[in-house]
Each structure stands twice: as C-alpha cells, then as structure tokens.
C-alpha cells in the first residue's frame, strides 16, 4: 500500500507530461492532416531516380 504514496504522484507527473507532449505535437502540426501520411507511406518512391 505504501507504494501508492509514490505511484500516485508519479501518475500525476506522467499525465502532465502527456499533456505537455500532446501540446508540443499539436503545435508542430502533427494533427493537421490525419489522412495524408497514411496514404504517403504506401507510395513506393524509395528507388533512386
């Protein structure tokens, strides 16, 4: 049970970290286009031109 006194604060820190990471991702435009990257990855343009 005593472990909770450590784990609960840790979980709070993790949640705030997650929020921070999410905001950074959102600012960098990761969520602006939710469809394009999935299509782009299918395009086979690895071969040298």
């Amino acid at each position, binding site marked *: 049970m005593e472990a*909770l006194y450590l784990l*609960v604060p840790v*979980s*709070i820190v993790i*949640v*705030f970290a997650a929020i921070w990471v999410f905001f950074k991702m959102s600012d960098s435009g990761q969520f602006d286009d939710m469809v394009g990257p999935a299509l782009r990855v299918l395009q086979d343009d690895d071969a040298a031109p």
Partner: protein
Amino acid sequence: MNAVPQAHASGCFHCGLPVPAGSDWGVEIDGVSQAMCCPGCAAVAQAIVEHGMSDYYRSRSGYAATADQAALLPPQLRLYDGADATEKYRAADGMLEATLSVDGLRCAACVWLIERRLRQVPGVVAADMNVATGRLFVRWDPGQCQLSGVLGAVREIGYAAYPFDPARHEAQLRRAGKTLGRRLFVAGLSMMQVMMYAVPAYLASDGTLETDMAALMQWASLLLTLPAVCYSAQPFFRGAWASIRQRALTMDVPVALGIGAAFAASVAATLRGSGDVYFDSVTMFIFLLLCSRVLELAARRRAAQALERLQHGLPDSAQRLDGYPASRDATTVAAGDLSEDDVILVRSGEPIAADALLLEGETSIDVSLLTGESAPQHRKAGELIPGGAVNAGQAALLRVVRSARGSTLATLVRMAEGAGLGKPALAQWADRVGTWFVAGLLLLAAAVFLFWQWHEPARAWPIAIAVLVVSCPCALSLATPSALAAATDALLRRGVLIVRPHVLETLHRATHVVFDKTGTLTMGRPVLRDVALYNGAERGDCLRVAAALEACSAHPLAQALAAAAGERHLEASGLRQLAGQGVTGSVDGVEYRLGRAEFIAGLCGRFIVPATASGVSSVWLGSKAGVLARFDLADDLRNDASNVVARFMAAGKRVVLLSGDQQAMAQEVAQRLNIPEALGGQLPEQKLAFVQKLQREGAVVAMVGDGINDAAVLRAADVSFAMGSGAALAQSHADAVLLSGRLSALADAAEGADAAMAVVRQNLVWAMLYNMVAIPAAAMGWLNPWMSGIGMSLSSMLVVANALRLRTSVKGN
C-alpha cells in the same frame, strides 16, 4: 505621458468632455500637446497618432466618442471606415450592408446576445446572426455609425468579428477546431485519471479506506481536475461571463455554475478533509460537453459547405488578352479588375471569372456549382457562359459582359448569404423560449438548494448541482437552427436556393400548390413536336436542311429546329432573312425557303394550308420541287412535370394550374398532368385575386412561377418559387429559386422541408420529455451529479446528431 497640457478650448481634445482638475493626461498631436480627459481617450489618441492617422483630428467635424468604448477597438479596425471600404458595402437605398464572420460563438444564445448588443448601437437597422455558418449580417446607417463601431460593439461582448473573407473564415474554423480538440484531449485525459483515483472511494465499504489514503486520492484528483477546469472548461466560463455582463442568460450560465459549484465544493471538502468530492463528475461533465461541442462544430462546418463551395467558385484572377485580336499575350489580372468587353482566356479545367460570351470555337462547361446539374453542357460561339462555371472542354476565349462582382455566381452567393442570415420564426421562438428556460432553471436550482438546506443540508449541494447540470435546452437553442441550416444547405446542393428564411416552414404547411403554366410546367420555349412530310421528303434530310438555314438565327423556333436536327450540320449559302416571313438560302445548290406558308408558296407554288391546333406554331420548308415538310413546334411540358404534380398530390396537397393562356390550352396541359383544377385566361390581377381568395379560406398557398412576370402573385403567396437562372436571379421576387431549371427540385424542396420539420419536431418533443423527467428527478435527489452530466451530454449529442441526419436524408447528387 507628456508634460503640461496646453489650455485647449475647454475640454478633452479627443471627446470634448471636461478635463478633470489636476489630471495630466495628454498626447502630442501634430507637435502640440493636447489635453485628454481620461487614460482611455489618451490611449486612443496615441494609437491614432502612432498609426499615422492624425489627419483625423484635422478633418473631423465633431468630437469622438468617449473613449472607454473606442479604446476596445484596435486601430486596424478603423481602416474599415475608409471611403473605398465603405463603398463596398453600400446597398441600393444608401444604407450600408456587410456580412461579417464572428469568432468564438458557443451556442445559439450567443447569437441572441450579439444581435441584442448590435441593435443598441445607434444607426444599426438590422443585425442577424447565423449560428450555423458563424456569419453576421448587419445593415446600418452610414450617417450614424461606422463599420468599426459595429465591429467594436461585437468585440466589447467578447467575440471577434471581421468583415467576411472566405480565406480568413476557413482559417478561423480550423483554429477553432484545433483548440477544441486540445481542450477535449486534456479533459479526456484528466477524466480517465481522476476516475481511477475515484474508484477506491466507490469500492471501499465504510472504514476500510484509510484516511491518509483517501486524502491522497482526493489531492491527486484535485490536481488533475485543475487543467480540465482551468483550460478545458474555459469556453463555458467565458460564455457565462459575457452573457451575465449583458444581462442575458445563455446555456453557458447553468453549465458554468454547475462546474464551478461542484469544483468549489470538492476543493472545500478536500481542504477540510471531510465531505464528498465530485472531481470525477466535474471532469466527466466537461469532457462529455466538449464532445457535443465537437459534434456541433462539425455540424456547423458541414452546414456551410455548399455555400463555401459557392464562395470559392469564383477565381481570384483571370488571364486577360489586352491586345486581342492583334496579339494573344495574356496578362494575369485580379478578377475584380475585369470590366465589360475585356477578352479573357480560360484554360481547360479553370473556372470562368465573370459572365462572358464565348468568342470562338466551342467548348463544354460544368455548371454543377451554379445549378446542381452535373452533366457538362455544350456551348457554341456567341453563347453566354455564366461566371463560376468551369470550362470542361478546350481552352476558350471569352468576352466579358458583366464584371465579376455582377456575375451570376456572385449574385448567387450574395443571395445565399442573405438567406442564411435571416431567421425563421421557429428559430426565433426557440431562442426566446431558450432564454426563459435558463432563467427558470436558475430559479428552480436556487429553490431546490434552499429546500434541501432546510430539509437535509448534507445533500443540498449535490442536488442543486445535479439540477443545474441535468437540464438540456439544446433542442431549442442549438438543434433547431442546425436542422434548418442543414436542410437549406442540402437543398442548395440540389439547386434550390432558399432566399427567405421562412420557406421550409411554410412549404411544409402549404395546402395548395399553384403552378403557372408557361415556363414553369412547360419549358417556356418551343420544342419540335411533329414533322409532317410532303412530296416524298425524308425527315432527317428536312431537319438538317432546316437547321442549316436557321444556323445564324437566334429565334427560339430556329433554335428548336437546330436542337432537333442533332449534331450533323449541312452548310447553307446565300442566306437571307425576311423579317416576319422566314429565311431563304441554298444547301448543296438547291434553293430552299423556310418560314410561313405564304412565304414558301412564293417559291413552290400555292398549296392548301391545313388548320393547326392552338398553341402550335407551324414552320414550312419548301423548294422549287414543292412543299417538303411542315414542322409543328409547341411549348412542351417539362419531362419531370407530371412526376412532380403526382408527388404533390400524393402528399395530400391541392394542385392548381393558373395560366394566362386560353382556357383550352390550360385544360389540355392540366389533363396531361392529371391536375384536377385548371384556370386559363387569367390576368395577373385575377391570379392575385385567386390566390388571395384561397388564403382567405384558410389555405396556405405555395406558388410556382417564372419569377418575373408573376411578381405580384409570387409576393402575395405564402411561399413562392421561381424558375431562375442567370442574371434574372436578383430580380426574381420569389422566396426561393429553382436554379437547375428542373421542376423535380421543387418536389425535393418539399420533401426537404418535411424532413427538416420532422426533425425539429422530434427534437422538441425529446427535449420536452427529457427535461420533464430529468429535472424533477434531479430536484428530488434521485440523480447524482455524474448521472446528470451523462444525461445532459447524451441528450444534446442526440439532438445534434438527429439534426445532422438531414444532410443525408435530403440526398445530394
């Protein structure tokens, strides 16, 4: 601020009010320090000087408004007061009109707030806010106020308004969506985590949870609820604050009170170390409410889609051939700079910037944006192409006949925007009831709190919170406008432009549908109905010869013949038109005449002219060899006319045909369409009297006409439709315009109206049942705050989702 102000006249240099003794606010204007009465005026004057607009003080004819209001106005908004900006908004009668886009709308009650505030501004004649599209239409008197004043008034109550600009509007919507997404994420994360900390308290039976552990869980919940309350719930608090400041009640007030009260009570309990906490309910409520906001935002975006496509339809630039016909070098100019007689080049796949005549060659155009018609249409040299159509064929040279601002599409956009802005009686009623509902709810919550305080103090807080949270007037304030907007937009995609807001409502109630004949049930132009052949002539040959002879004529009969002949053309030479007689010319060396019987007789000798039926025009073709053919042309019924009439009859509406033509012809058309009642030989006044008589007998009359000849009767009818296209659009006096020229669009409109009203009714019934059950239950103490939160959020999602259904039930192409 500057040093000792100069003794200037008697008062503040900016607003003219007396300067308080001992004050030293001053601004240096044109090198002279001027006294100001307050920091507000000083700030504004400073801003004016800094933005290089101190000219204002030299040319003004009176003092400025006292600055506490003006100070809220960023100086860049003043740019909108400039002469050219003002000119852009001038309406026909000297008033100014503008469409603004407004940022930060939360619910339909915000709309009420904005409208009310604007109507207090002196000089504002009309203000209509459309929640579905986020657009505000304002009409004001330029003598009494200016656009910056209007924008400032909107800003003052916490919304940002800009003159409408599609690009900015788009960016604004995207930003709103992004911010809402973030708020939702934070609320969701915090909800899940707080839920975990709440589980032990729910599971533990009395005494098994250590006090220390319980305190730890409560503190942890408190910390994690903070971001949800401080960040995610911000829109609710802001909305509530703005509405309280304006002494108008919106839905945000009970929501914000509920969240605030629950959070405050929980914090107090945590600090005290005893009592109930509701952190889980608070976070869940915020999360669910935000979910319904996301849904609503999506609904709003989609409701404006068809309109947005229209707005993006006109290109910003055009390729102008300045040296045509000598040179064909194109320069790119702004579409707004095009004027009459400019020659423009439109490449394949490009939209056409203004109404223009095709100069050479032929092409096909896509007018789906303008009329909902998806098949490309063929155009020949000399024909008019409406602005906003897309060139689907080869590159084309066109001569502009109307500037881009006067083009068909621009007219359409203006009408559609104006239409979305007015508010149907139903929505106005819903707004009013919504406000009273919230006021009643707040009183009830207070009463319930007092009762339980006296009866069982421990439960007073949770029960009052539950009452605040559980009620859901969304069907009133949110779903009704959404439903109407969704239906209007779906119809616009099908080519029905609704010009006045009451159309859907009234059409749904209509008992009589009155059709005009010419141009409405019929095409309004002659079509080849029959060919009688003489002297062994062959039908196809005759038609091709006739088409060749009529190739250069714009007469409707000539066009009907050309259309009937199809694609393969012969060439005629030596064409000569004789007014009122016909046309003569040679095809393959043989001389032909086409026209009236007497005219043909001059070439091929006398013959017996058979009597023709009324309403049919006969055109004769003859050569030296004798009479070849008689073409019977008549105004034909539209293909979809009988289907539309049948659909209205099946819906239980009485269909009447009202025509200016002879009774016999009206009767004939009515018979072919199975219309039970037909009145021919009606003068406009008689038509008007007929409609008014029906109305006196209690009928709700829907009138369908061609829009221009029937102006009076269209205006008198309860709801009116015009068959419209092109530049005549703006002159039509109807409540709605059938852009596609397809009559079946009318039946679609009727079905759309029925569907919209059904959804509105369902939503209202649901809202009534839900609130009648849920509010008393909460007041009796049967519901916890968390149950209330779920109930309220689900209910509002349900009504919004129901309204969204309309987009699919009124099917697009």
